[in-house]
């Protein structure tokens, strides 16, 4: 449930737009959640074509003949409204050959989750012969295991296709895929910045969703030509006319030429290809200018160093060129240059307008960050491309190995992940109860969850995570402002003047207004406005502390709307709140990892829930154990675990002590696994359960 829930979040405040005014509005949009970030892919080479395996690179001299498939074999496409001959692959030229800028089209696909983006991308690759049917793997663009499992795209990739249009000319089409989640909206915006056009895919049976809006605004902000595509028209519930009107009304796009399509059935694919050629503007031919290339993705390859994906904006780049990354200032020599089709295929040179990849023995993705500009060391560009942002973590949590011996392994795993994920921040943290671990910063909740899952899955670590926390700003009496994400580091009440916390704005379409309002009301939400776009379409905007959302907000939203609700959020800034630090004490000892920053009005309920849970989970011990929740010295909730009464094995039959000894040794082993808090032994799973509960109630 939570995975699905989070997929639907994308970052934008989407005030409802009146048609025709969107460009004006767009200039006012800001994307505070958009932060530099890269998500990696270790698995990439497993999914590539045999023709271009990294590690076994197939060196193909530029201009040589290279053909994947001469004909489209698509028995399932009998209804396809175009003939095979119309696709007319030119056997004499391959998709690596140089094309004039006027024949290049760079585009991406933007869509709400499940509206068929991946299926359409697959179909485009297939129809243009970029991937043969034999090689076709479903959802080709989603490479990473995690993505495939969750059905979401974190990883961006690109594919260069060759298409001979109706006008008889061969075109080079570059599809640049975008990730689909709020945490990665910066990546989305950089990918879009690398394009001139975008397909807006909307499910003809579902209509416009919150995420559709978010991505359309990003596309418009980047001045992209948008081609509306109504997908899944083959479904019984499809109502393309209604959805077309909806797009016009809500998004304000002219949909008179919207394409009706079924990516699954292959309907409308050729119209889409023709429309891309006809409508998406070609890149400007600025090959003569000094090199400027926009990085829209990078990942770490253990053998070749960081692989950088980029779009050449100006000039050209050649193999063995000395290049510089303008934001990081780092210089490297290009070892390998190529295009993605969608496997990596090497070329010697790329020109303005083209999309490609390079390897230059770069040690860490931090040196070649998404949004950075590549220029030539010999002939530097005067100014970097605009839009670069540093990654700013929004959500923090502590990660501790369950087994203290795994601390070293955890550190190594984080180091490796960071090679690939410049947005991941961490620093060592230690606690009396949890031992040694790390405090980690993430772009958002999905990012956090993915990192945790990868640490556990790929590195075999068993982790305890503390409840996620946001960054608070504390105005201190000495007139300084302290930023703090760890409750334990919150300045003492006497030293604080006030605490500010980050707030977000949420928006949801009409159907879910009730659910969202109910939930937001319980979580310190503040109603901002309700807007009616048409009689049937409305949306509500709520202001809510981010801290209220880092728990189980999405899970709740989904379960209360039977899985349907979609909402978007974006940071709206910091505000003062009446916050306190809630401490949990076991036998008088504070339990640092369980401390939380909560709103004063909720402290009592949270304190009671946590103390009750601990009472349930801590086994009786030889003495009575008080469990308290306190704000400063004031105890606001209290429970106690009565002393153990009886733990004795009566019989020791016939001198057979082995079984009894085994039991006692097992009991002794169990004690070793418990964390000692003062004299109290707390089982590991009690910690876990309370931390889980904390995520729900704090």
């Amino acid at each position, binding site marked *: 449930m939570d995975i699905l829930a989070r997929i639907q979040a994308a970052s934008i405040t989407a005030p409802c737009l009146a048609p025709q005014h969107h460009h004006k509005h767009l200039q006012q949009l800001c994307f505070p959640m958009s932060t530099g970030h890269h998500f990696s892919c270790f698995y990439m080479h497993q999914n590539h074509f045999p023709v271009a395996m990294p590690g076994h690179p197939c060196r193909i001299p530029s201009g040589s003949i290279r053909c994947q498939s001469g004909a489209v074999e698509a028995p399932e496409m009998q209804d396809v409204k175009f003939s095979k001959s119309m696709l007319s692959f030119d056997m004499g030229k391959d998709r690596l050959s140089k094309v004039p800028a006027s024949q290049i089209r760079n585009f991406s696909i933007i869509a709400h989750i499940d509206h068929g983006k991946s299926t359409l991308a697959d179909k485009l690759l297939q129809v243009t012969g970029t991937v043969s049917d034999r090689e076709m793997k479903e959802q080709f663009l989603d490479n990473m295991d995690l993505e495939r499992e969750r059905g979401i795209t974190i990883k961006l990739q690109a594919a260069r296709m060759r298409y001979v249009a109706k006008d008889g000319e061969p075109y080079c089409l570059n599809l640049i895929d975008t990730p689909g989640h709020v945490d990665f909206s910066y990546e989305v915006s950089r990918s879009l910045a690398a394009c001139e056009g975008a397909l807006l895919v909307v499910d003809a049976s579902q209509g416009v969703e919150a995420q559709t809006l978010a991505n359309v605004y990003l596309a418009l902000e980047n001045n992209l030509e948008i081609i509306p595509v109504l997908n899944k028209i083959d479904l019984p519930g499809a109502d393309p006319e209604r959805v077309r009107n909806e797009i016009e009304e809500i998004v304000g796009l002219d949909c008179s030429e919207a394409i009706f399509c079924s990516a699954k059935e292959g309907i409308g694919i050729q119209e889409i290809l023709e429309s891309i050629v006809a409508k998406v503007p070609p890149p400007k031919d600025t090959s003569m200018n000094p090199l400027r290339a926009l990085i829209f993705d990078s990942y770490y390859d253990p053998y070749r160093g960081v692989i950088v994906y980029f779009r050449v904006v100006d000039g050209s780049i050649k193999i063995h060129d000395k290049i510089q990354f303008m934001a990081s200032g780092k210089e490297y020599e290009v070892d390998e240059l190529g295009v993605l089709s969608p496997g990596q295929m090497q070329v010697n040179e790329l020109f303005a307008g083209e999309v490609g990849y390079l390897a230059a023995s770069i040690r860490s993705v931090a040196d070649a960050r998404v949004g950075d500009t590549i220029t030539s060391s010999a002939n530097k560009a005067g100014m970097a491309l605009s839009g670069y942002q540093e990654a700013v973590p929004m959500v923090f949590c502590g990660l501790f190995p369950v087994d203290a011996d795994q601390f070293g392994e955890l550190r190594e795993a984080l180091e490796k992940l960071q090679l690939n994920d410049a947005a991941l921040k961490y620093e060592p943290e230690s606690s009396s109860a949890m031992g040694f671990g790390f405090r980690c910063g993430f772009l958002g909740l999905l990012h956090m969850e993915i990192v945790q899952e990868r640490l556990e899955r790929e590195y075999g670590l068993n982790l305890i995570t503390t409840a996620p926390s946001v960054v608070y700003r504390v105005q201190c009496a000495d007139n300084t402002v302290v930023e703090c994400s760890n409750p334990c580091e919150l300045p003492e009440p006497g030293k604080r003047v006030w605490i500010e916390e980050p707030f977000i704005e949420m928006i949801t379409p009409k159907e879910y207004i009730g659910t969202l309002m109910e939930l937001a009301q319980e979580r310190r939400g503040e109603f901002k406005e309700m807007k009616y776009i048409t009689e049937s379409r409305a949306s509500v905007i709520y202001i809510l502390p981010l801290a209220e959302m880092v728990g189980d907000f999405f899970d709740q939203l989904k379960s209360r709307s039977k899985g349907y609700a979609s909402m978007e959020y974006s940071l709206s800034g910091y505000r003062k709140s009446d916050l306190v630090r809630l401490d949990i004490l076991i036998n008088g000892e504070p339990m640092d990892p369980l401390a939380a920053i909560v709103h004063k009005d909720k402290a009592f309920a949270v304190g009671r829930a946590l103390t009750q849970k601990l009472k349930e989970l801590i086994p*009786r*011990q*030889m*003495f009575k154990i008080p469990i308290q929740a306190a704000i400063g010295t004031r105890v606001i909730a209290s429970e106690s675990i009565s002393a*153990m*009464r*009886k*733990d*004795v*094995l*009566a*019989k*020791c*039959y*016939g*001198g*057979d*002590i*082995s079984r*009894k*000894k085994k*039991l*006692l*040794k097992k*009991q*002794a082993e*169990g*004690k*070793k696994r418990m964390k000692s808090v003062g*004299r109290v032994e707390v089982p590991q799973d009690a910690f876990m359960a309370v931390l889980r509960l904390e995520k729900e109630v704090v």
Partner: protein
Amino acid sequence: MGSYVTTLCKEITSTLSQLPQASPLKTLFFGGGTPSLLPPQYLSRIVDTLDQHCGFQCDAEISMEMDPGTFDKQTLKQFLGLGVNRVSLGVQSFNEDFLKACGRSHGLQDVYEALDIITGLNVSNWSLDLISSLPHQTLEHWEECLREAIGLSPAHVSVYDLQIEEGTKFGVWYKPGHHPLPDEDKSASFYRLASSLLREAGYEHYEISNYAKPGFQCRHNMVYWKNQPYYGFGLGATSYFNGKRFSRPRKLKGYADFVELCINQSSDNFSANEEYLSFYSNTVESVEDRVCDTIMLSLRLASGLNLNELSKNFGHELRVHICKSFLPFINSGHAVAVDSKFKTVPPDTFSTALSEQSASKVLKDVIFIRLTDPDGFLLSNEIISSLFTDLPIK
């Protein structure tokens, strides 16, 4: 039955004949299953075999477990004639319903008939087993049961808790600590009641679940608790000698094969010797095991852990270490330190002695540490496992 006794006697012969000098037996215990069903002529064969190979000390304690309803006066008389001088009667309860509940085949009538037989034959050293924490049992029921037992004036009483084993029908029906079984608090109160009533009636609570009138402690079981060596013969029996613990096969076929190997081994057959060793694959107990055995067994006794013996066997450092581990339990009243004059060492004195750099005279004076009755006994598992956790050896 006959062939089993033959096999058993073979095992006794092959084991004892290998020993250069087997000293006369001080105690002998027939237990496990229902030995009272054994026809006297078989018992005679076993006792004769033992007598042949090692003999008995003149005051040897020879115990037999007997279940009500499984023997008559004639049988017991013959047993006594063969040397049995201590009877342990598995009464379990003086309530018809509870007898059924604890899965016994005998009824209350059988219990009183058995008691008549024992008293009729003037057996003075007899013991009575009781089970507490039965389903639906209340503190009142339990008190009645204890008073009935005390009224019969046995020399020895054993009190056990009903133990629910997984995989048995009890395990399916009942969950420990959950209704209808008593919860932990209630079960503890049963234990406390037994301890106070039996001690009031002149019984010494000499071991966690055993009470005896002065002079009537079970000498055989004391061997186990004092971690002293003993032989074991027969199906599933355990033994401890030459520093090795060994459990015999629990199935008849396996046991017979094992005895066959024992015989071949004693006749110096090399290949059989290999197999024999695989049966005896257990090596001499490690130091850690011996320390654990010493702690867990001695703390079952009212006399407690003998620290002088501990340092003699395992070194002075361990003595200091264990004393430190005991400190919280001594402070909480679950254990007490006892000096050479059998006087209790006050917790403060004990604690001060420990905090001093060198082990002081006070610490040397502490000869025993024992668990208190009933507080320490009731939490013995918790205390023993904590001591295990603290042990300096891995």
